[in-house]
């Protein structure tokens, strides 16, 4: 090496300094990127579970005043006149599926009782049943989105 070669082993030439820093920066960046890439790799982009957004059929499939239980999605679809709502059938206590009672809902596991609005009337459940967003899809079907929780008084009006 014909440029300044220092005697002291701790010191490096200017060129060497630049090279080392750049090398370590690039290398560290690569390591960080590889780590980030590994984590991103492990995050699933698609799920092979039943989708949280699904179509619940045409509005006319549900008679007025009906509460329809959908087993696979674990929800109740409630129609009153021209309003449609969707209630989660999963008990907020420990996750059992609640049953429809005469007025309201009842959980067979530990006896929680919910009223028509999903609020807790009695039992160990800590909070009311959840309501999910219902919209109308572009091809005129009820679209339930379990990603979106809504207040009990928000419903789809047709």
């Amino acid at each position, binding site marked *: *090496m014909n440029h300044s*070669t220092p005697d002291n082993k701790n010191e*490096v*030439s200017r*060129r*060497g300094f*630049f*090279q*080392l820093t*750049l*090398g*370590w*920066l*690039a*290398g560290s*960046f*690569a390591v960080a*990127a*590889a780590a980030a*890439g590994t984590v991103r790799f492990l995050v699933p*982009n*698609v799920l*092979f579970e*039943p*989708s949280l957004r*699904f*179509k619940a059929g045409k509005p006319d499939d549900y008679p007025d005043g009906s509460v329809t239980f959908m087993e696979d999605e674990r929800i109740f679809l409630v129609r009153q006149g021209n309003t449609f709502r969707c209630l989660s059938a999963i008990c907020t206590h420990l996750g059992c599926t609640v049953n429809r009672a005469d007025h309201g809902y009842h959980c067979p596991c530990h006896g929680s009782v919910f009223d028509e609005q999903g609020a807790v009337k009695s039992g160990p459940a800590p909070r009311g049943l959840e309501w999910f967003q219902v919209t109308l*899809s*572009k*091809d005129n079907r009820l679209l339930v989105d379990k990603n979106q929780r809504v207040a009990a008084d928000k419903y789809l009006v047709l």
Partner: protein
Amino acid sequence: MNDLSVRRFYGWFTVLGLLVGVLVVIGYYRDEYRGWKDYQRKFIQEEIRRASTPQQRALAESTPVQIRQILLSDLNRVDRCTTCHLAVEDPTYGGYPQPLAYHPFHEQHPFERFGCTICHRGQGRATTTTDAHGDVPHWDHPMLPLQYIQASCGQCHEAADNPAAPELARGQQVFEDSGCRGCHKLNGAGGVIGPELDKVGARRSPEWLKKHFLAPASVTPGSAMPPQKFSETNLEAIILFMLSQTGESAPGYYASMKVIPSASEGQRLFQQKGCIGCHSIGDKGGKVGPALDDVGLRRPPEWMIQHFRDPQTVSPGTVMPGFGFTETEARALTDFLLHLRDQKVALSLPSLMSPAERGREVFRKYGCAGCHGADAKGGVPNPNAKTAEQVPGLIYVADGYTKDELKMRILKGQREIPALDAKRPPPPLYMSAWAGIIKDSELDDLAAYLFSLKPKGENLGF
């Protein structure tokens, strides 16, 4: 120690470190910037532009950019076409350029239950355009050109039944008329000279099939199949029909939806339930109930369907029994009777036909015309065959054979065809052995038909 000093490697260190860094960036770039994200962003922009209320705008803006897929576990597939084809369900996107165009006709075949590739083929799991459209190496099911799309209907529905797939029905008609079954087995019936056709639609492309019909030897060297002379429409139709033979069977839920109430199904039921015992059509049948020739003119379809559901409700006091028809069966029978009115369906009820008439159906069923010509008149070329280099016609078989000899001949076939010139290649077409394929009753009827072919009054006295 200077020659060993690591300092002289610092340059290498930089270069390699940078190289690895650059490669990581390239890798990230190629992974992150895939075509579908651009399409989704364009779609979101379009939705925002079209939004007429603040809620719609908010909904559009909050649309996530992500892969969308339709999981079809019964059909064993996953379709990710909707990752780019985002507006298939939105009628307001009719006429937009792909991939944002609307897709009509999904009332009976909702996308959530059927996906896309079951009809359009292609590679549903892919998320890049070329790969998804499937015309790539090592993928056997590229997208079906749109002109052949009706072929996919035939995977689940009977070809002849489907009013929405007239080309498919035409294709089946051409197939039957041309006698392809004489050499090719389809659904268990047919000859053995050519390969079975049950899965041909999954193995061969439309281009191959076209070449195959026009010039078989160009795609299958040494093929015995004579070139076919189809009209343009018939050629397209039979290609379509071949494409529909994929060997797929519709599972569970889909099979239950399979039957479209149809005239030919109705005819089958009509025969099976013995309606002709009480009702007449033309000059055949019983006199207990009314004649059915023009029932389509006298009664509306709704009346007829209700009549099949429960005869007493529309004809109080009738002696017609309640048969317990399903809804589909009722509609099928109604359709059949309506067709009688339109005379669209040739009435052929086997129990009322003569043996020769039945034999004609057998001749048609097994595709004998493919070699022996339409109406057994001959004319199909068989190069180097002693019989005037043609497959012989069968008009005069009554003169050359007894019925038993004829039946024997059909059952045994003839593998070696006498050649005109021993130096030329042997004649490619031969007679299959039909033993085990043709039923005894069918054989009797076929012999009767063939014997009936001789023009009346001739007696050449062989």
